[in-house]
C-alpha cells in the first residue's frame, strides 16, 4: 500500500465528507424547522437559517465563566473532533472510509465519547444547571446504549453467518442486509429492532420524549447553559453532525440499497449518486423521527424516560435479537 491509497485518499475523502455532511446536516436542520413550523401553521425560518445561526454564533464574543476549567474550552473542540473522526467510520451509502473488522466497536465508542465530552464540558463550567443537565445526559446515555448495542451486535452476528470477509464491520451492511434472510421470524425480529433503533435515534438526538438534558423550560438549557459564541457554534454543529451520523447508521442497517447499480454508474459518479441517495434516505428518516416526533410529543421526566428505555426499548431489543438469532441457534 503506497502513501496515496494509504493516507492521502482517505484524508481527502474524510475532508470532503466532512464538508458535505456539515452542510447537509445544517440544511436538514433548516428543513426540519421549516417543516415543524408548517405543521403548526407558522411560516418558519428560511432553509439556510442554521447556517446563518452558525456564522453569527461564531462571530460573537465568547464568554468564559470564571468558575470554569480547561475542559470547558477543550470539550467543544474535542467533541467536534470526535464527530469528524466518527465520519470516517460511518456508512454513507458506501463502505466507510476506514472500514476494518470489528469497527462497530469504534463506532459505538466514538458516539458515546461525543456525549462524554459534552458532559465533561458542561460540568467544567461550574454551573449547577449544567451539572443537572450533565447528570441527566449521563442517565439517558447509560439507558439508551445497551438496547442499541444488543440490537446491532445481534444483527451483525446474524449477517456474519451469511458469509462475509470482515465480520462486525460497517461494510457488512452493503454485502448483506437484514431483509434478505427472509424468514417470517427474522422479518418480525427486524421490524422490532427497527422500532428499537428509531427510539434510540430519538433519544440520541434528544427530540420529543427525550429532549431532557437540554430542556430549556426546566433547567435553562441544561448542558449548554454556559456556552456562548464560538464554542456554542461548535456544539451546535456537532449536534447536527451527530444526528446525521446516527440516522446514517439506521439507514445503513435497514435501508442499505443504493441507486448507482440501477443507473449504471461507476467509480466516482456511483459514489456521489449513492451518497446523495443516502442523504435523501437520512432526511426521510429524520423527518419521521425528528420533525414529526418533535412536533407531536412533549418531553418525559427523566425517570420516565429511563424507565421507558429499560422496560420497553431494551426488552424489545432483547426480543428482536432473540427472534433474529433463533434460526441460527435452533
Amino acid at each position, binding site marked *: 500500500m503506497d502513501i496515496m491509497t494509504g493516507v492521502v485518499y482517505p484524508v481527502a475523502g474524510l475532508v470532503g465528507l466532512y464538508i458535505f455532511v456539515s452542510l447537509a446536516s445544517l440544511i436538514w436542520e433548516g428543513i426540519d424547522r421549516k417543516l415543524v413550523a408548517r405543521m403548526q401553521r407558522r411560516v418558519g425560518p428560511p432553509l439556510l437559517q442554521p447556517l446563518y445561526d452558525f456564522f453569527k454564533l461564531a462571530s460573537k464574543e465568547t464568554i468564559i465563566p470564571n468558575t470554569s*476549567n*480547561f475542559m470547558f474550552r477543550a470539550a467543544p473542540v474535542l467533541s467536534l473532533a470526535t464527530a469528524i473522526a466518527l465520519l470516517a467510520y460511518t456508512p454513507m451509502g458506501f463502505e466507510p472510509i476506514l472500514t476494518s473488522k470489528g469497527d462497530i466497536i469504534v463506532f459505538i465508542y466514538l458516539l458515546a465519547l461525543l456525549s462524554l465530552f459534552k458532559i465533561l464540558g458542561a460540568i467544567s463550567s*461550574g454551573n449547577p444547571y449544567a451539572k443537572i443537565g450533565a447528570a441527566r445526559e449521563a442517565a439517558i446515555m447509560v439507558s439508551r446504549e445497551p438496547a442499541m448495542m444488543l440490537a446491532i451486535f445481534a444483527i451483525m452476528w446474524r449477517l456474519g453467518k451469511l458469509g462475509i470477509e470482515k465480520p462486525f464491520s460497517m461494510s457488512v451492511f452493503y454485502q448483506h442486509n437484514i431483509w434478505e434472510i427472509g424468514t417470517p421470524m427474522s422479518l418480525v425480529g427486524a421490524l422490532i429492532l427497527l422500532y428499537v433503533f428509531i427510539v434510540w435515534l430519538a433519544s440520541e438526538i434528544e427530540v420529543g420524549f427525550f429532549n431532557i438534558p437540554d430542556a430549556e423550560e426546566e433547567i435553562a438549557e441544561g448542558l449548554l447553559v454556559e456556552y456562548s459564541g464560538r464554542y456554542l457554534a461548535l456544539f451546535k454543529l456537532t449536534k447536527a453532525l451527530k444526528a446525521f451520523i446516527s440516522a446514517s447508521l439506521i439507514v445503513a442497517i435497514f435501508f442499505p440499497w443504493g441507486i448507482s447499480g440501477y443507473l449504471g454508474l461507476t467509480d466516482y459518479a456511483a459514489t456521489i449518486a449513492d451518497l446523495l441517495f443516502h442523504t435523501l434516505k437520512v432526511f426521510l428518516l429524520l423527518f419521521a423521527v425528528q420533525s414529526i416526533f418533535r412536533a407531536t410529543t412533549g418531553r418525559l421526566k427523566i425517570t420516565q424516560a429511563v424507565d421507558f428505555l429499560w422496560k420497553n426499548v431494551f426488552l424489545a431489543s432483547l426480543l428482536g435479537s432473540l427472534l433474529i438469532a433463533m434460526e441460527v441457534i435452533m
Partner: protein
Amino acid sequence: MNGEAILPYLIIIPLFGAFSMPMVNLLGRKSREAWAVIISGATLAVGSAMFYSVWENRGIIVYTLGAKSPLGQANFPIRIVWEVDLFGALMVFMVTLVSFLAVLYSLGYMKHDTGLDKYYTLIIILELGMLGIAITGDLFNFYVFLEIMSIASYALVAFRNDTWEGIEAGIKYMFVGSIASAFILLGIALLYGQYGTLTMSYLALKLAESPSVTAKVALALFIAGLLFKSGASPVHMWLADAHPAAPSSISAMLSGLVIKIGGIYALARILFSIYGASISVKTVGWVIIIFACITLVIGNAMAVIQNDMKRLLAYSSVGQIGYILLGLGIGLAAYGSQTGEIAMAGAIYHTFNHALMKALLFLVAGAVIHQLGTRNLNELSGIAKTMPKTTFAFLIGAAAIIGMPPLNGFASKWLIYESSAIFNPILGAIAIIGTAFCTAAYVRVLYTFFGRPSESVMKAKDPEGTMLWPIILLVVAIIVMGLFPWQISEKIMIPAVKALENQLAYVSTVLGGA
C-alpha cells in the same frame, strides 16, 4: 549486550545504594537525594539493558552464584541460580522504571517528612527485593527476596508513624503478611523435605518424575500465600488500608509493583515453571479463575462507593488484579491452546500497563493530597481549575484504566475479554461487569474534579517539577504504548508467554550444564 554479565548489577547496585545510604546521609540532604536518584537511575539503566538483551536474544539468562556452572561436581544444581526469561526481564524493567519514577517523585513529595535517610534506604531495599523475586531461580532465594520486599513494605506503609492510620495499616499488613509468608515458607519446607532440592528447575524435574501429595499441599500453601500478597479477594483487606496510609510514592510502588511481583509474577512462575508438568493445570486454573471473579467484582464494586481518593484507587487495584488473575487462570485452564496464550498475554500485558497507570494515578493522588491536605473526594471538587496538569494526568490515567481505545489499557483488557469470552462467556460477562463498576468509580471522580471549585481548592496549584515530571513521563508512556498496542503484544507479550509456557527450556537451561 551480554545479559549474563550485567545481571548481578541488578542486585549489587541497589544493595550498595541502600547500605551506603546511612553514610551518604552524613553529607546532607542534597547528597542523600542525589544518591537515591543515581542508584535507582543506574538500576533502571541496568534493568532496561537486561530487558533489551533478553528480548533481542530470545533466550534465558542463567547466572550461578559463586561458580561457572550450577552443577558443581554433581549432576544436579547445588548452587543458587538466577534465571531470567522474557517474562522475568519484563518484570525487571517494570520494577526499575516505576521505582525510579517513585524515587524522583519522593524528592518533592516527602520533603516535609523526617527520617528520610531511612525512607530512601527502604525504598531502594523494596526495589531490591522485587528485582530479586523477578530474577531468582531458587525457591529459598525467592522466599528471602519476598521477605525483603514484604518487610520493607511493612516499614514503608507505617513510615508516617505519627499518624494513627499509618500504624494501624502497618500492623494489619504486617500481621497477616507474616502469616502469608509463613505459608510460603512452609510450602518450601515441605517441598525440600520431599524432594531435597530448592532449585526451581531441578525441582520441576523431580516433581514431574514423582508427583506426591506433599507437593500438592505445598502448592496449596503457595497459592494461598501468594494470593494474599497479590491482594486477591477475600484476602484483599490489608491492601485497602495499606495503600491509603502509605506515602503516595509508596502506594504507587505497592499497587503498581509489589502486588504484581510478589503475587502475580511469583504465582505464574511457580505454577508454570515448577508445577507446569506435574499438576492438572485445568483444576488449578479454575481455582485461580474463581478467586479472580470474586476479586474482579468485589474490588471494582467497592471502588464505586469510596469517598477517600486513595482508598478508591486501592480497591480499583484489587479489581484490576482480578483481571490479571483471570488472564492467568484462563492461561492455565486452557494451557497450550491459542485461547490460553492470548489470556496469558493479556495478563502479562495488563500487569505492565496497570503498573504504569496505577503508579500514575497514585502519584496524582499524592500531588492532590500534597497540595490540599485532604483525601476526601467530596472536598476536592473542581481541582481542574487550579491544578489543570494534575487533573489532565488523572483523566488520562482514569481513561487508560477503564480501557479507552487510544490508551494502553485497551489492548490488554481486550485480550483478556476476548480470551475469557472464547473460553467461557460467563467469565467474559463477569469481566464486563467489573469494567462497568470501574467506569462508574472513575467517572464519579472525574465528575468531582471537573465540578465547581470549592473554597479550599482555590488556593491549590500544580505541584513542583520533581513531582510533575514523573507524572508527565507516565502520561507519555501510557499514550505512546496506546498507539502501538498490537505491535507490543506481538513483539513482547506473546514471546513472554511462550517463554513462560516453555517449561522444558526453563528446566534444561539450568540442568543442561550451562
